[in-house]
């Protein structure tokens, strides 16, 4: 194959690209995913795996809720459980003031008609997470959230998409895109491809791709860092966040503890690289040592970072181009797009097959930053 025509070409083989491919293929559309490296090589394969509704921007809650329904039956759907576990997610308050903030948040979510975020006092907090430092004052829990294995998940989507008929082209970057006679022509390595629809799932490179297509989005590419410890005996079940600090904290089935929260490495998307910043990881380590005294004995064995697009308002771009027909953007997930993976593909499939979707995507419009 050095040429080919598809209903849709997806640029980027992260979780969102794979999800789009799966949903489109399941609806009988021909689809090709073009990935410059390997599928799951970037954010989708290296993230913290948090499957979290807790604390989402109100605009994201309907999508997150719909995605959650899909996570709960992910094994049946994909034929791979993706390492998904319902562990609960818990956001901790360390002061009375923070607890009041969480209380307000719980009210806000309830007023929107959702009941997944539940305020808990110290007793329930320490029952849920006995290893927490005793100065904590309470928390907000979403009991049926959890976490999954990110790389395995992304590959499971890819596999299922393939089985449904989607094609993947790895190790090949899209280097030129042209709009010609109502269709897109795409150059990728030695390939010359065309499609009626183009889906921008280029992750940390998504804003660059949009800019190429004359649709500037003021997103920056950042590189959130993670670190992981040597195995410890099991001591905490839910995934832990904090109201007053940057933290995401979970103990995996292997006993290792994965620590993140948004501290950033240097992002070098042009070079496909990141460089760790230990000054920032120090802050992350300090947070953990203060919240979990048991962690003071832990050894850090590995640190890494992934590239991700961050928008000014902290929510992604999801939806049709404001300039071109047959172009859909899906990027800028701001460090929390993993959980949304299952649903974004459905949204794109809805848009391509019926021109609309029942999920409220207006807040994610690509042109919201203009003017």
């Amino acid at each position: 194959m050095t040429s080919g025509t598809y209903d849709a070409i997806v640029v980027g083989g992260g979780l969102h690209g794979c999800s789009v491919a799966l949903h489109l293929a399941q609806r009988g559309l021909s689809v090709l995913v073009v990935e410059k490296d390997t599928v799951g090589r970037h954010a989708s394969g290296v993230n913290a795996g948090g499957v979290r509704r807790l604390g989402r921007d109100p605009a994201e809650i309907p999508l997150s809720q719909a995605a959650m329904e899909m996570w709960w039956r992910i094994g049946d759907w994909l034929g791979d459980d993706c390492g998904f576990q319902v562990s609960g997610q818990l956001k901790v308050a360390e002061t009375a003031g923070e607890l009041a903030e969480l209380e307000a948040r719980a009210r806000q979510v309830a007023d929107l008609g959702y009941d997944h975020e539940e305020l808990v006092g110290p007793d329930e907090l320490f029952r849920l997470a006995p290893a927490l430092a005793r100065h904590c004052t309470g928390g907000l829990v979403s009991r049926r959230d959890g976490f999954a294995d990110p790389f395995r998940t992304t590959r499971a989507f890819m596999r299922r998409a393939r089985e449904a008929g989607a094609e993947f082209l790895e190790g090949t970057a899209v280097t030129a895109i042209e709009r010609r006679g109502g269709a897109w022509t795409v150059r990728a390595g030695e390939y010359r491809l065309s499609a009626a629809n183009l889906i921008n799932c280029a992750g940390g490179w998504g804003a660059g791709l949009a800019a190429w297509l004359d649709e500037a989005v003021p997103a920056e590419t950042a590189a959130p860092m993670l670190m992981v410890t040597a195995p410890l005996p099991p001591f905490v079940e839910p995934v832990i966040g904090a109201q007053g600090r940057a933290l995401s904290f979970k103990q995996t089935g292997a006993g290792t503890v994965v620590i993140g929260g948004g501290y950033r490495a240097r992002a070098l998307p042009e070079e496909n690289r990141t460089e760790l910043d230990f000054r920032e990881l120090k802050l992350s380590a300090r947070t953990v040592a203060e919240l979990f005294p048991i962690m003071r004995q832990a050894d850090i064995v590995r640190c890494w970072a992934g590239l991700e697009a961050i928008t000014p308002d902290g929510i992604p771009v999801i939806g049709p181009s404001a300039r071109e027909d047959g172009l859909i953007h899906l990027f800028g997930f701001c460090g929390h797009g993993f959980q949304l993976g299952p649903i974004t593909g459905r949204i794109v499939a809805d848009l391509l097959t019926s021109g609309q979707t029942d999920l409220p995507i207006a807040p994610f419009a690509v042109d919201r930053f203009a003017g």
Partner: protein
Amino acid sequence: MAAAIDLGIIGAGPAGLSAALTAAELGLEVHLFDDGPSPGGRIFKALEAAPADRRWYPGDDHARGADLLNRFRASDVRYHPETTVWSVSRERELGLAAGGRAWLLPARAVILAGGAMERPWPFPGWTLPGVMTAGAAQVLLKTDGMVADGPALFAGAGPLLYLIAAQYLAAGATIAALLDLAPAGNARAALGRLPGALRAPHYLRQGLALRRRLRRAGVPLIRRVTDLEARGGGQVETVSYRAAGRRTEVAARHLFVHMGLLPNSNLAASLDLPHDWDQGRLCWRPRLDGWGASELPWLAIAGDGYDIAGAVAAERRGELAGLWAAEGLGRIDVAERDRRAAPIHRRLNRELAVRPFLDRLFRPPLEDLAKLDDAITVCRCEMVSAGDLRGALALGCGEVNQLKALTRAGMGRCQGRQCAGTVAQLIAAETGRPVADVGGYRMRGPIKPIPLASLAALETGDD
């Protein structure tokens, strides 16, 4: 940031010591970091404190080591023992840890002289207590004068196997047999390289002398051994192997394995420096120029980390890197550097002459790794078996880092140092690609584990 030191050197083996002495003599402020308690690296490990009888260990080059260490002690190199370098950043900062502290220290130039590691070699029974690398046995010998109780078996391929066995013998231990796993075709293939090797005849003489010594002591030297296997319940009880068409099983409580050396490249890899596959030595090597300088103008590599070529070559490479640093930091000009380097290059080339011969003679049967039984553990940290890895390969993941993500192989404390080669070999075999295309694990600091508490109190030098 704290004030930058001139030159930071990682590793106090022959390469690091020589680099430090050369650079300090030319006026640089040199700091030398090593995670061990005393200087000397592998060959001169604990030499200063060694009892007199160790002087007679073959291959220890006691006099040369003592001289190097004396000059080092008399120099004004700042030596930091028991200090682990867990990171080197592109911002030229070293991440250091010692005594529960961790700190960052900027340096104007850096030389990596972290030496080599023994090539990990899984085989049936390799995780049984009683099986260890010959190098690990040597550490016990050199630091505590300890030898195993009861008869020991040595097995593997490489000049060091014979050397360490002979040292063991000299220390009074009993060796049940030495099993040479170098494949049958090696000797013939190496023959063509013998003329070049004759430029460094002392190596050949030493090699022959070692064999003689072992033979005289009655140690059976069994060649062309295949199908090595350690058997036993909680501990090795017997070792089984095939030689001359027969399977043999012998009683042994200890099996010391050595399959050659690999450059210790975690720091270089964590800097994303380019590495090339060396088909002659069957290992990855950092891409460097003749001085050891990398594509980062402030970073060089010397010694075994550059190229496995023995302790004398390591000293020469260290000296060259020391000159490189002195020139780079303006202490000498290029002409002076080159003038001083000329005789060093000549001596180095003599040392290197023997390598193509030795590399070929002792080339390990790397392909065997791809034939491991499914049940055999490949990644010991995370207990991932060959079968687990093949299962992941069957899911369509044909790259080392993908297998890591799927199986956890390489995610443990050693950061994949132990399993990377085997995983690559398995992938190469299953996908029909050369191992050079398969690649290695992406490496990130900390390249050695650091306590979270130390990181939380990291001294950044910023205030």
